[in-house]
């Protein structure tokens, strides 16, 4: 991650595709793991760890959406709904069967994958804008269904209370315990995605994205791979939904509305389409944006505005910043934060002899 090669000495494709380009990369990853698994939970307070938890959850969802949008080139504006599918599946399992997390999380993911694959079926005939609108329709229809079927939504206000998961008999009560639990899933998602995109399936995804007719001609079943992409991506979304439900302690469809789908799309666009590191950057950025805006305005905005004004300004300013940043990144830096990061690295690669 931070190493600087003196040149390219690779002699085989396997070496080119290796997860660790140099032995030192392993040490960098190990150092990061140590930092985030040992030092961070020991030093940071509950509040900051709870923010990190939100980021970890968002990373899982953003990676999943990036598999679909960034790698396969299909658009989904329905990811919020897929998350709600996972969330309600898990919530029902917990409430009715008292299922542990190692049942609810895969079950939520699989249910979301199933629904996601069904939503993906129109991608056989339609693409681009039409697919975007079809997934938008899926978002609205799933939202409506959950809200109107008491068997799924638990009746009153369409929300179900879910207790925190237990790990070997220990209930994860504090944010720090939850942090380590969520970290496990985030790491699993990161490693899983980076291996997925290097595999045969991942290569097929990229071929479909770059030119689907050409991919079909060289023998890739576009329809099959589009459906697989939808299923995998929705699986991640479902898991995200379950994790978020555990985090909040309640499954509520209002946490998974259209704006959530848009938030996740913003994450991968700001972070960088078709990039794993970008998904992580984007997840952190979009999660932190409202928190930092609020903190900044509450600390310094009080000097200019009254408290009542601030209550009106903060959410709207957040919206403006959010939309403005999406536009800014699309127009100025389409490859997102990941590209900025690469630029910085490339600059330092030959530093201080940049000529």
């Amino acid at each position, binding site marked *: 991650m931070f190493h600087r090669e003196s040149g390219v000495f690779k002699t085989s494709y396997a070496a080119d595709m290796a997860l660790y380009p140099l032995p030192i990369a392993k040490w960098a990853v190990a150092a990061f793991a140590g930092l985030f698994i040992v030092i961070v939970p020991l030093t940071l307070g509950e509040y900051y760890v709870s923010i990190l938890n939100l980021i970890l959850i968002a990373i899982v969802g953003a990676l999943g959406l990036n598999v679909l*949008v960034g790698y396969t080139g299909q658009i989904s504006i329905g990811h919020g709904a897929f998350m709600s599918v996972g969330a309600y599946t898990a919530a029902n399992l917990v409430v009715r069967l008292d299922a542990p997390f190692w049942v609810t999380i895969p079950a939520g993911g699989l249910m979301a994958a199933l629904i996601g694959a069904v939503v993906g079926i129109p991608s056989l005939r*339609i693409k681009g*804008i039409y697919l975007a609108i079809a997934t938008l329709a899926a978002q*609205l229809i799933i939202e409506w269904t959950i809200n109107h079927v008491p068997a799924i939504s638990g009746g009153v206000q369409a929300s179900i209370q879910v207790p925190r998961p237990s790990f070997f008999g220990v209930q994860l009560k504090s944010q720090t315990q939850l942090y380590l639990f969520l970290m496990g899933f985030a790491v699993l998602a990161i490693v899983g995605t980076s291996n997925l995109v290097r595999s045969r399936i991942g290569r097929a995804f990229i071929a479909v994205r770059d030119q689907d007719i050409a991919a079909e001609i060289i023998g890739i079943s576009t329809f099959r791979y589009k459906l697989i992409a939808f299923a995998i991506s929705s699986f991640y979304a479902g898991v995200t939904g379950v994790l978020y439900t555990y985090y909040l302690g309640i499954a509520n469809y209002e946490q998974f509305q259209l704006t959530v789908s848009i938030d996740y799309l913003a994450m991968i666009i700001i972070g960088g389409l078709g990039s794993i590191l970008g998904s992580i950057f984007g997840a952190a950025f979009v999660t932190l944006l409202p928190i930092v805006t609020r903190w900044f305005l509450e600390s310094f905005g009080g000097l200019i505005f009254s408290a009542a004004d601030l209550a009106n300004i903060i959410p709207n300013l957040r919206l*403006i910043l959010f939309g403005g940043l999406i536009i800014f990144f*699309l*127009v100025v830096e*389409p490859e997102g934060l990941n590209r900025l990061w690469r630029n910085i690295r490339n600059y330092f690669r030959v530093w201080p002899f940049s000529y």
Partner: protein
Amino acid sequence: MPEFEWQFTLVLLTNGVMIGLMYALIALGFVLIYKATDAINFAQGEFVMFAGFIAAGAAEILGAPFWVSALLSVSGMVLLGFGLERVVLRPLIGRPVIAVVMATIGLAAVLRGTATLAFGAGTRAIVMPIGDEPIELGPVMLPPVQVVGAVVSIVFLAAFSWFFLKSRIGIAMRAVADSQQVAMAMGIDVRRYFALAWAMAGIVSALGGVVWGTMLGVDNQLALVGLKVFPVVILGGLDSIIGAVVGGLIVGIVENLAAGYLDPYVGGGTKDFAPYILMIAALMIRPEGIFGRRRIERV
């Protein structure tokens, strides 16, 4: 099953037609942009809301009479259309669909935030100087706002149809939509027509904002009518003006019938739901819509 009452059905149908024509007006803004620039405007609802805010704000804050505030709204939206095309959309020409979709989604967030920030979160009213005595036609009562809305829709739909078929600028726009390269080679300034398309969408959105704002009141919920645009344009065809009318009528009628006959059974909300089911069916059977042009893809 309630007994089939022709009067009830007639009321639902007429309401559907009126609302449908007003949907068509908003969808027209979407179609104009798609037809000329191939861009999909996910911020159409926010355009309408913003126009409503300008009109309502002008009337309340400046105390302007209705016609002046409507005119202000139209000119404001034209400027906004020009500006947005220049700053946001022009750099995205030739980029993948998702880029344009996301840019307009971002635009929607910005417009929504700006409007609420500038005009406050409360609902404002636009008062049209036409009275609110409903017009009676046999068993059907029509609020005058809806009649005005329907008339405005028909006039503008006809005007734009004529514009694209006969006028020089309209023909140039169709040429640009058909093939930007060939249009450029024939001496058409493509960028100018892109800007013009956004400005025209601004005009239509302003009218939509005034009409819908009069009917529903102006607050940031007004942007939700934008969600109805998608079923309308998918059913009618993304690039067809007559398609916007037909799609609007279908959606208006279907949602009113669904609300009248299905709501008692499923507990409400079918109004927002039925058009989307219809749209999914249309996407599976005929994605280009009733009047849309089928696109042939080449590698």
